[in-house]
């Protein structure tokens, strides 16, 4: 696990090894820049400063010499005292400068100072008299001192660069190591939590392939970790539908859904998945999976109890009402008829009283099976309670169908019932009401069917009767019993 942590950090932190290398480069670059820029900047600025000084000095002295030349155009060059005074003026501080004054023919007239050591900054300015150059002053100044200072600055730059290198290299690395350590600790905690979780954990890539799973996930699916990490999520899906893991609405999508998986042994399990989309490396699904098979079974059982008859497995009264309402709606939309058959078993109480409730229950169960065998898949059989059953015949377009079904039921139910070594015989009375001609609502239709059933009973049982009984030649009695 520790090595996995380490790998994870290196793989998932671009700031890991690569960041350290980058930091080294940045530190080296900064150090070199500092070491170079400082002396270079100093020498450039220093040189420009020296040039400015020399230019200023030459400019001011040229102006003064121009004034002397203006006063004495022909003999200004012999005004030695004045010219020398101009040359000696300290306009700016220039140590060890050499000043040269030339006439228009480039003959040297005056010079002061020794020739400075190289490198030399040299600037000349003309001496103008009546718009023409009668000479020029040239100033030579050594730049060596600045270079020596630059060498000192370069040394300081190197020291500073070294300091920057050490600082930039060590401080972030220390921080990075601390961060990495914290991340690894966090990762270890996270992996420990994930690994010890009773819920399955999986990390999927954009294609739905498993990248990481925990032990609970292996337990849940029956697949080993190595096998899972070579599979895709679609391989687990039992439902033949599009894989919900690949449905993406947005980058920050979180979703929770239920689905059904097939385990390695073929067992189907219901799972609840909490998936979080991570927009990294092309998209990741970070999922926790909970086995909800038992819960689903419980829910189904509760639902079954609420909607089905425990003895016969047929829809109970509650479910019957739902189905009847749905069928009436469908019939209404399709402009078709629907028929409701209300079935009451004749003489069932005698069976119960003579053979016992156990046998009575067996008979009810068999009766339910027989009635169910008489109808289409689209029709509904329900047990309302006791010995009362109903049949909803959907989408009836032929009145003969209803009569045939009722007749068939009567026939099936008059057949003997084998009740644990004993034989029971019953018959049934069936009341029929037709939607929408007899009633426009479910309750009303049931009531009419019930009335028709009583009419059949009163007319001697083992027959079916339409509602209203006196309107049709509705009562049919089985001639064979």
């Amino acid at each position: 696990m520790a090595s996995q942590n380490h790998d994870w950090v290196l793989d998932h932190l671009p700031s890991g090894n690569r960041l350290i290398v980058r930091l080294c480069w940045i530190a080296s670059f900064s150090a070199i820049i500092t070491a170079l820029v400082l002396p270079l900047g100093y020498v450039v600025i220093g040189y420009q400063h020296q040039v400015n000084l020399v230019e200023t000095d030459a400019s001011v002295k040229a102006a003064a010499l121009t004034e002397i030349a203006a006063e004495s155009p022909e003999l200004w060059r012999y005004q030695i005292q004045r010219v020398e005074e101009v040359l000696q003026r300290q306009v700016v501080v220039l140590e060890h400068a050499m000043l040269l004054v030339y006439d228009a023919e480039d003959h040297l007239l005056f010079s002061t100072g020794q020739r400075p050591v190289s490198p030399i900054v040299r600037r000349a300015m003309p001496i103008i008299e009546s718009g023409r150059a009668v000479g020029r002053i040239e100033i030579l100044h050594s730049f060596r001192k600045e270079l020596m200072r630059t060498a000192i600055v370069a040394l300081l730059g190197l020291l500073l660069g070294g300091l920057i290198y050490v600082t930039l290299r060590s401080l972030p690395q220390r921080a990075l190591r601390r961060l990495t350590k914290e991340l690894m600790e966090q990762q270890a905690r996270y992996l420990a939590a994930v690994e010890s979780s009773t819920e399955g954990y999986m990390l999927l890539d954009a294609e739905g392939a498993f990248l990481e799973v925990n032990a609970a996930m292996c337990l849940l699916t029956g697949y080993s970790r190595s096998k899972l990490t070579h599979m895709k999520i679609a391989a687990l899906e039992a439902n033949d539908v599009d894989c919900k893991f690949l449905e993406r609405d947005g980058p920050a999508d979180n979703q929770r859904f239920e689905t059904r998986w097939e385990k390695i042994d073929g067992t189907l399990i219901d799972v609840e998945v909490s998936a979080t989309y991570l927009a990294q490396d092309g998209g990741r699904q970070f999922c926790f999976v909970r086995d909800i098979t038992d819960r689903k079974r419980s829910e189904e059982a509760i639902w079954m109890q609420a909607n089905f008859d425990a003895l016969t497995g047929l829809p109970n009264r509650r479910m019957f009402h739902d189905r009847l309402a749905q069928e009436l709606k469908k019939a209404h939309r399709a402009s078709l008829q629907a028929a409701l058959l209300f079935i009451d078993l004749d003489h069932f109480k005698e069976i119960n009283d003579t053979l016992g409730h156990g046998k009575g229950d067996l008979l009810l169960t068999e009766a339910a099976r027989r009635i169910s065998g008489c109808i289409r898949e689209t029709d509904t059989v329900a047990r309302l309670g006791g010995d009362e059953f109903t049949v909803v015949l959907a989408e009836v377009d032929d009145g003969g169908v209803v009569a045939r079904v009722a007749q068939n039921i009567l026939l099936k139910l008059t057949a003997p019932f084998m009740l644990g070594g004993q034989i029971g015989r019953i018959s049934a009375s069936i009341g029929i009401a037709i939607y929408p001609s007899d009633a426009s609502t479910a309750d009303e239709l049931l009531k009419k069917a019930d009335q028709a059933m009583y009419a059949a009973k009163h007319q001697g049982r083992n027959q079916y009767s339409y509602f209203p009984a006196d309107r049709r030649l509705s009562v049919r009695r089985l001639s064979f019993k």
Partner: protein
Amino acid sequence: MWAGELKIGGGGTDLGTIKLLAKEFSAKYADIQIRLVPNLGSSGGVKAVADGAINLAFISRPLNAAEALLGLSAIEYARTPFVFAVAANANLSEITRHEVAAIYAGKQASWPDGSLVRIVLRPRNDSDTQLLKSISSEIRQGVLAAESRPGVKLALTDQGAADDLEKIPGAIGTTTLALLLSEDRRLKSLRFDGKAPAVGNRAAGDYPFFKQLFLVADKQHIEKRNTVAIERFIAFVLSPAGKKILLSTGHLLP
């Protein structure tokens, strides 16, 4: 140009006297035009003569070794006392070498009446400064201190120095008796160590500091060209008429 024009230039020490001499000379020799070039200084005058830019230079020091090699001819035509001068209305008439040293050194910053002392310096290589520094080591130290002190007035020419001494309150500086008298300056020379810078005293040998005055010409020019004008001017300066002017303007004849 050469035949009828005499171009004369040099230092300012004896410029006023040269102007007076030139005026008298021109009156006598109307065919010779004299053109005076001011502010060349002694060195500039000598160089201008050597280059042929002027015909005659008047300078206030002997030729130095380098100038002597240029083949020039220098004639000492007079001397004049080198003096310390103040404004004519200043309440001061004499000074000692110790006071001079103290003033230049900045140790004496005010006059007895409480007004500020303001020195007028000359350039370091000027003959006035050289002569001043040669008076005593104490004065030399004082002058060096003044030269390095900021804000001390520096006059580039003799006339500029005289102008400054006249205009600046409490000013003191060096000049010559010839300049004061020939230019009729509103300045007065100070007695130095009790000795007055009068020509008569020089004759008695009392006043110790003088500047030698020379006329400088180029021997080659004299030989090769028409030297009549130069010779006539030199002859006039040394003539009784010239001497009269020199004596009346604070000069001592050799």
